[in-house]
């Protein structure tokens, strides 16, 4: 889109006004990235929307427009409704836990102590390591026969001789387990983001609170938390986006089982479309995520804009 303008005669003369030539150079430098993103993100995105209104499967060559049929089918499918509910539970519970735990951890990490770099490295590991591999680690920890959790609980006397929970094999426990793994995996990001927010509070504010004799909790709830709130919100929004769209933890640990009790929208879309060949049905399921993503995106933009005005 920029090439014809460059070729126009008199370009160089007009370019003497630096801003004009800079603008064209800018477009030229930006174009490849924008085109690539259009090709591998925007086009497939529109295709996904198209699929959801058609009857395309892995086999069909001439898809037909079917209107809202896929969405209607999804809403009447108990497996879908189950996955919708599971996605809500999985995301809301895990992110609530993450925010509370990450705030506590970030406040604890504010102190200076020796070996802090090592603690930071270890705390970040779950987020930095590929989650498919981390989840395999948990698969072994949750093993039905050799679970180290069960062994420990029994030997400290919490588990009686007759109880031996099968972490990934019982519906409620399986949901609790994948939530636990997801908390483990997303907490580092929220912690580091909160820590950044905490350290950007000017020291005078803390000093003033100290002088006024505010106790630890008063200081925390009246001063610290309100000031960190905007950045905590950023952490929540990213956490939500990563949670509602994640299928890796579920795929590796439970494949959605037992009895679909841990099936989420993302994993259902995968099993429907790739394993089952129903591309349009899978696309419709995945697109139910869109409203959540759109709300998160709008809120993130709001936060960004507000910060710019300040």
């Amino acid at each position: 889109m920029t090439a014809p303008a460059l070729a126009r005669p008199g370009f160089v003369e007009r370019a003497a006004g630096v801003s004009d030539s800079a603008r064209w150079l800018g477009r030229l430098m930006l174009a490849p990235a924008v085109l690539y993103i259009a090709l591998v993100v925007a086009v497939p995105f529109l295709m996904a929307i198209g699929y959801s209104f058609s009857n395309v499967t892995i086999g069909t060559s001439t898809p037909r427009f079917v209107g809202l049929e896929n969405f209607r089918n999804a809403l009447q499918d108990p497996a879908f409704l189950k996955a919708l509910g599971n996605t809500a539970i999985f995301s809301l519970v895990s992110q609530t836990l993450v925010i509370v735990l990450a705030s506590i951890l970030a406040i604890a990490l504010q102190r200076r102590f020796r070996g802090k770099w090592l603690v930071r490295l270890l705390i970040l590991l779950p987020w930095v390591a590929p989650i498919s591999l981390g989840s395999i680690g948990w698969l072994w920890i949750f093993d039905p026969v050799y679970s180290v959790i069960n062994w420990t609980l029994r030997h400290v006397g919490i588990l009686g001789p007759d109880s031996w929970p099968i972490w990934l094999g019982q519906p409620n426990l399986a949901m609790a387990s994948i939530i636990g793994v997801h908390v483990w995996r997303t907490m580092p990001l929220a912690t580091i983001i909160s820590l950044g927010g905490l350290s950007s509070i000017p020291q005078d504010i803390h000093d003033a609170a100290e002088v006024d004799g505010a106790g630890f909790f008063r200081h925390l709830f009246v001063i610290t938390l309100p000031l960190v709130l905007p950045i905590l919100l950023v952490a929540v929004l990213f956490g939500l986006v990563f949670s509602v769209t994640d299928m890796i933890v579920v795929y590796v640990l439970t494949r959605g089982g037992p009895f679909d009790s841990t099936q989420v929208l993302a994993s259902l879309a995968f099993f429907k479309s790739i394993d089952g060949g129903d591309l349009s049905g899978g696309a419709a399921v995945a697109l139910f995520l869109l409203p959540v993503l759109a709300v998160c995106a709008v809120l993130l933009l709001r936060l960004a804009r507000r910060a710019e005005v300040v």
Partner: protein
Amino acid sequence: MADPKKIAGGVVNFGVIAAFTGFAAFPFAWMVITMFKQTKDLLDPAHNPFVYNAPPTLEHLRVLFQDTLFLHWVGNTLFVGVLVVLITLVLAVPAGYSLARLTGPAGEKLGIGIFLTYLVPPTILFIPLSRLVALLGLQDRLWALVLVYPSFTVPFCTWLLMGFFKVIPKDVEEAAMIDGHSRLGAFVRVILPMSVAGLLTTIIFSFTLVMQEFVYGLTFITSSKNLTLSVGVPTFLVRGDVYFWGSLMGACFLSSVPIAILYNLFVDRFIAGFTVGAVKG
């Protein structure tokens, strides 16, 4: 001097940090313990799992390196990683500079738009992309991953690099341009050499994002020899009912921890990328 309240606070603080660090690191510690344990020691419910009841062994690692496709997957991951890093640099470096300096207020909006594409998840894109990959004849080939992975590395790295270039004072280019460089020349000869940290960060992030990716790899690649580590280890080392836990844990540990340590050196810049705009300064 010794205020009991302060001491109690310190103890609580230490306890909190110790508990969280334990939670975060435990699965990795468990991988290390498991990968050197003899199978008969691992698979005896009466054994204390925290100690070596039989002498440690390197047998699991030997199996992993000699009898599985592990090294093959390492090679595939490096191949895809290096190409994706190159594509990302070629696309994101000029785009980031352009958004930081050349496009004005419109660029600001476009930059946010590019960043938002990072929020469109593979979960929505993998279905149509699998069709595109098939159309191009790339099913079950590493080139499919090389083509698709920049879809998430480019938006994020463009955003990240934009932040980097914005921090460089404008006088730097102006001085270079007075010295006779063109705008482009100033960018290549003066700005890029100043941005080594930013470029290095981009390289590390693109590479780790490639290492972490799972959904596309699972969707586009079908034969075991063409897999990358993040998909090959959890799918092909776990086929069937027999789990070779020692080798499996060895594979997980060896392919996650080194990259994690490397990444850790750059993580602050990554976080800055996430929160830019939301916090100033």
